[in-house]
């Protein structure tokens, strides 16, 4: 590691030092509790802040993609728009339909937001800046991710409305069928690192050869795993091409049709936080967590790199939302079971082969050839099965 001046290392560990400095005010037996409370406060403050920023970023980004400005009336350049949205959703009347099942109707957004916040516990934001360094951190994240489906079902069922029931059924079916490729594509990184702990996965990727980092995404199986993980992540958080549950055009607003006021805002908070946590995990697993992209730049603090990569991930989500139309429910399912699953299983084999093949270009060629061939073949079979394809048109005489 090149020698980094103490100023930069302090900057890198600034939050850790801050935490220790605050802890020093408390008696010894209370210090671990205070430390974790500070960590929780940091997360609960930082990520909803990013949520507010993302709502503006999303609307301005979509606007710019559509040749228009996006919100710029509330505050300079529209920065205060989330504050306005927040106040609006707080002051809006919270209507609960008469026939709705009040208890479950109320609990649904609560369960969603709790589950999503729990997901951040094992996310390594910076060098030794992780709230809970669990030995099976990744398994914890996927376990919590699985319970968000329950809250969506509760929302859909409790509002006793035809549209929200259809939307909830679709959402749960979609999330379950995309959870399998999500898990399998992340197992690849676990296999090579040999541990389920997110901190160890990031450390395994922190070395440099020359100036290039050892990120998993630069290996054939890593790149395939990354794309599969991102596609499954899009489906898991009901984003862009997979935002069928709240498909505005058919079912008015999907499972949160009957929600208004702050509960509606809570659902959005839950969706966006889900997006950040899963993007955070894509970064941890494949993009080297808080590692610097070039060895020369590794003096910049680690948490800065994490948030920079998170920012790029958010922009990618927005970019997709501005471009792609929506998939239909059965096509969505076909894609999950007939393309994503076989590809991620194959990716497991390729990763295993990578681990036992000797170093050097030969394993590069073999692995990438296998993956590419499978991708092209599977893609063509999938397209030809529904006889989709470009068409040429004739003209009348």
């Amino acid at each position, binding site marked *: 590691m090149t020698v980094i001046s103490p100023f930069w290392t302090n900057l890198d560990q600034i939050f850790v030092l801050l935490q220790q400095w605050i802890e020093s005010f408390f008696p010894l037996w209370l210090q671990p509790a205070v430390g974790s409370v500070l960590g929780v406060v940091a997360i609960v403050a930082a990520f909803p802040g990013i949520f507010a920023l993302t709502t503006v970023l999303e609307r301005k980004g979509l606007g710019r993609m559509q040749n228009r400005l996006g919100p710029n009336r509330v505050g300079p350049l529209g920065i205060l728009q989330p504050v306005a949205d927040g106040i609006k959703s707080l002051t809006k009347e919270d209507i609960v339909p008469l026939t709705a099942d009040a208890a479950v109707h109320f609990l649904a957004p609560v369960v969603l937001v709790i589950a999503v916040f729990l997901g951040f516990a094992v996310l390594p934001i910076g060098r030794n800046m992780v709230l809970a360094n669990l030995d099976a951190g990744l398994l*914890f994240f996927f*376990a919590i991710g*699985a319970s968000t489906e329950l809250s969506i*079902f509760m929302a859909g069922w409790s509002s006793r409305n035809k549209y929200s029931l259809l939307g909830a059924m679709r959402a749960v079916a979609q999330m379950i069928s995309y959870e399998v490729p999500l898990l399998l594509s992340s197992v690849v990184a676990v296999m090579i690192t040999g*541990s389920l702990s997110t901190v160890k996965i990031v450390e395994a990727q922190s070395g440099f050869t020359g100036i290039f980092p050892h990120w998993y995404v630069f290996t054939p199986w890593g790149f395939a795993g990354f794309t599969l993980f991102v596609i499954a992540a899009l489906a898991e958080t009901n984003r862009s091409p997979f935002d069928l549950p709240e498909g505005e055009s058919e079912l008015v607003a999907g499972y949160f049709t009957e929600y208004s006021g702050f509960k509606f805002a809570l659902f959005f908070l839950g969706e966006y936080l889900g997006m950040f946590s899963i993007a955070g995990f894509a970064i941890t697993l494949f993009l080297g967590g808080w590692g610097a992209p070039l060895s020369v730049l590794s003096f910049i603090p680690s948490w800065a790199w994490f948030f920079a990569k998170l920012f790029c991930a958010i922009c990618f989500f927005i970019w997709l939302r501005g471009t792609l139309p929506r998939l239909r429910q059965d096509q969505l399912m076909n894609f999950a079971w007939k393309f994503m699953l076989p590809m991620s299983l194959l990716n497991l084999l390729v990763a295993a082969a990578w681990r036992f093949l000797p170093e050097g270009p030969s394993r590069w060629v073999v692995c990438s050839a296998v993956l590419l061939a499978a991708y092209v073949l599977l893609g063509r079979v999938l397209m030809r099965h529904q006889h989709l394809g470009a068409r040429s048109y004739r003209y009348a005489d």
Partner: protein
Amino acid sequence: MIFGLSLVFILTSILTVAGALAAALLRNLVHCALSLTVTFAGLALLYLQLDAQFAGFAQILIYIGAVAILVVFAILLTRGSGIPEHRSFSSSWLAGLVISAGVFSLLSWAVIESIPASAARATPQLTVQKIGQALMSSYVLPLEIVAVLLTVALIGAVIVAMPESSKGGAK
């Protein structure tokens, strides 16, 4: 530390028992299913207190993530989510009480018998790595059998769920 049990343990066990009772006694089927999920969560917390991380997370992933959703879907698709008219207590509740008391006493006897033996040894330091190696080395055969069993069950479920029309001719 009340009666030699930590406060957190008492809270979680109350939560679990309350969830189980609610699952049995509530009228609305979906409410029962949701309180069943609370019980599963309580169990997971108990595992985590015993520092069995892998078991706790697996419990959350499998039971809350899949089984609870399965139960709820089953209730929904079979139109069972309406409020049942008849009382939830069957006429022969007394016999039920006797049987459950019997089972409870059997279980508690077994638990009390085993406490002195295990208290001597310290709980082994368990990591996920050890579980993985154990699965792959000494328990590899049962793992494979379970895998085959699950696959067969999966295929069976698909065939049962296949619509009649397509089961006959090739779709």
